[in-house]
């Protein structure tokens, strides 16, 4: 257990370092950081001085080490566009993205697993065929179009729900939440569906496929031969075995929700980090791009670790008990 965790942690650190290298390269090789900071008027001497001061003349490994050390403290410099520290800007906008991602993930996971199980158990029924066909449309629908269609129907035509922004927010400590006001919750509905729909269809199709696979296995056949009830077989045996492979892929999918939020946030003008990133790309705001990249990598790594732990909790085959010897 301990060795397993340590190995996973080491792998995570390697991933973070690789992504850090990409982010660092962005800083150093894309455009001229000095040019970006001081503008046209600065003299060559001033530039050289700043270069020395920022340590840009130091050897590459030293610069990278410094970058990593700073990044570990959340230090990514000053945004070129907004002239404010990147970590402050991101911290302001992160709650919006996290709340959106959390609600979508829950929505996608809950409905996705239920619909997937239903479609697998009733594979020859017409409702499950219908659900599968609709899900294929869901996979083919670009996220931004889903958003536009939802806005057109529910905001423009029916005028039930707001089409942009977060509604009223409440400051709770350092966290600005939209969960506590009615307009905040109403504003969350359309973006959350938009963001979650793709993951929902994906999870559903995955759960269905895995469950059908499990239902064909020998141990399910043997369970049937022992006369166990359908309930015990489907939900006791099949579902649990389905979840083992599903956990991994689903975990990764939910991790990418944060990144997919870029599109949803643009459509709904949702003031989160994704919208920040898009604007950063349009204005070539490198520090923000680099910081965002590292943030996504961090989410990915953390979710991966959680997935590993879950996996470990569900599947006894991974738990190698030191005490009991295997009898042969």
């Amino acid at each position: 257990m301990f060795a397993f965790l340590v190995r996973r942690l080491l792998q995570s650190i390697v991933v973070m370092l690789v992504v850090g290298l990409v982010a660092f390269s962005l800083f150093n090789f894309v455009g001229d950081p000095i040019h970006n900071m001081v503008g046209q008027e600065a003299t060559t001497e001033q530039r050289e001085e700043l270069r020395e001061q920022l340590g840009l003349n130091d050897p590459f490994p030293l610069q990278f080490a410094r970058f990593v050390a700073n990044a570990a403290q959340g230090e990514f410099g000053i945004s070129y566009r907004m002239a404010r520290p990147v970590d402050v800007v991101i911290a302001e906008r992160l709650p919006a993205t996290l709340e959106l991602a959390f609600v979508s993930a829950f929505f996608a996971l809950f409905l996705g697993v239920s619909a997937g199980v239903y479609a697998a158990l009733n594979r020859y029924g017409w409702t499950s065929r219908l659900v599968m066909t609709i899900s294929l449309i869901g996979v083919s629908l670009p996220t931004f179009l889903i958003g536009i269609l939802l806005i057109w129907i529910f905001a423009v035509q029916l005028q039930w729900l707001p089409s942009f922004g977060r509604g009223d927010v409440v400051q709770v400590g350092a966290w600005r939440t939209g969960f506590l006001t009615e307009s905040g919750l109403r504003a969350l509905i359309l973006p959350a569906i938009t963001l979650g729909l793709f993951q929902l269809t994906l999870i559903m199709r995955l759960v269905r496929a895995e469950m059908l696979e499990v239902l064909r296995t020998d141990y399910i056949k043997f369970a049937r031969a022992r006369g166990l009830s359908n309930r015990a077989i489907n939900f006791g045996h099949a579902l649990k075995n389905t979840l083992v492979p599903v956990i991994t892929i689903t975990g990764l999918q939910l991790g990418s929700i944060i990144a997919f939020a870029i599109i949803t946030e643009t459509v709904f003008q949702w003031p989160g980090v994704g919208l920040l990133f898009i604007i950063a790309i349009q204005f070539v705001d490198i520090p923000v791009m680099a910081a965002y990249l590292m943030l996504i990598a961090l989410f990915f790594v953390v979710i991966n670790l959680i997935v590993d732990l879950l996996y470990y909790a569900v599947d006894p085959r991974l738990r190698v008990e030191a005490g009991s010897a295997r009898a042969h």
Partner: protein
Amino acid sequence: MSVPGRNSPTSVARHPAERAGRPPSALARLRDSDLWYSFTRSPITVISALIVLLFFLGALFAPWIAPYNPFDPASLNLMDGFTPPMGEAFSGNSYLLGTDDQGRDVLSAILYGARISLFVGFCAVLFAMVLGISLGLLAGYKGGWIDSLIMRIADVQLSFPAILVALLIFGVARATLPRSFQEDMVIYVLIVAIGLSDWVQYARTVRGTTMVEKNKEYVQAARVIGVHPMLIMLRHVLPNVMGPVLVIATIGLALAIIAEATLSFLGVGVPPTTPSLGTLIRIGNDYLFSGEWWITLFPGLALILLALSVNLLGDWLRDALNPKLR
């Protein structure tokens, strides 16, 4: 395109002519193949194929069949702007799907837009395919640290959504390329960005097959007689992975079309001067609230129809060829 039926691993059909000792013609073999059988048995697939074909022809012959040329400023009549579908325009021209803010015919814009979307999609898939197959062959054949390096990069890249990777590459290109260059280059930057974000699946599939094939005797034999083994591998691995690669490429085409539209919608793709479907949707999105829904919804529907049809074709291909895909 070769006859797909030849590559079908599930093909067990024996043509009567074959039993009689005559080799059947390619057409007869196609008609008798499992692939053709499952194609004709699935009306949805046939309809999807027809829709995709229509889009191809429409995009290819857009200059000849589009009612108007949306890129010819001389033919634009600003007074015709915001004409609703089937509505009467100021100039007396009629527009089946209405016009946009500048009086451009939406139908014509869709035809020209699909041209760009399909072009970007195809080139991106081709780029990803060539890159993925080459890296997969290299990784599978060489093994060792080259293999580890390529597959690690693949793993890390897979953990980020393709759209983020494409956005990043696009951002880098924007920062490094001279500004004057960007307008002309943007389509190629898009192709590279989308292609680079989608090579991993090809590489994984090809690598797996390569690792199986490379230990077979004919490769050893080739080495003995001095033929470069990579050449032999190419000739023997490729036919083996044709099925899976075709499936990945078909689904990849749908993904690439969607990725292009998404990037253009996000404002980092094709510029409004030569709009793709995504750019059209972006332009129209501004007018959604003032009631001019047709400017964004028709290109949107066209995009959905195209992506869905290609996806359905890919789905059917996967089921029909049943390669071991995950």
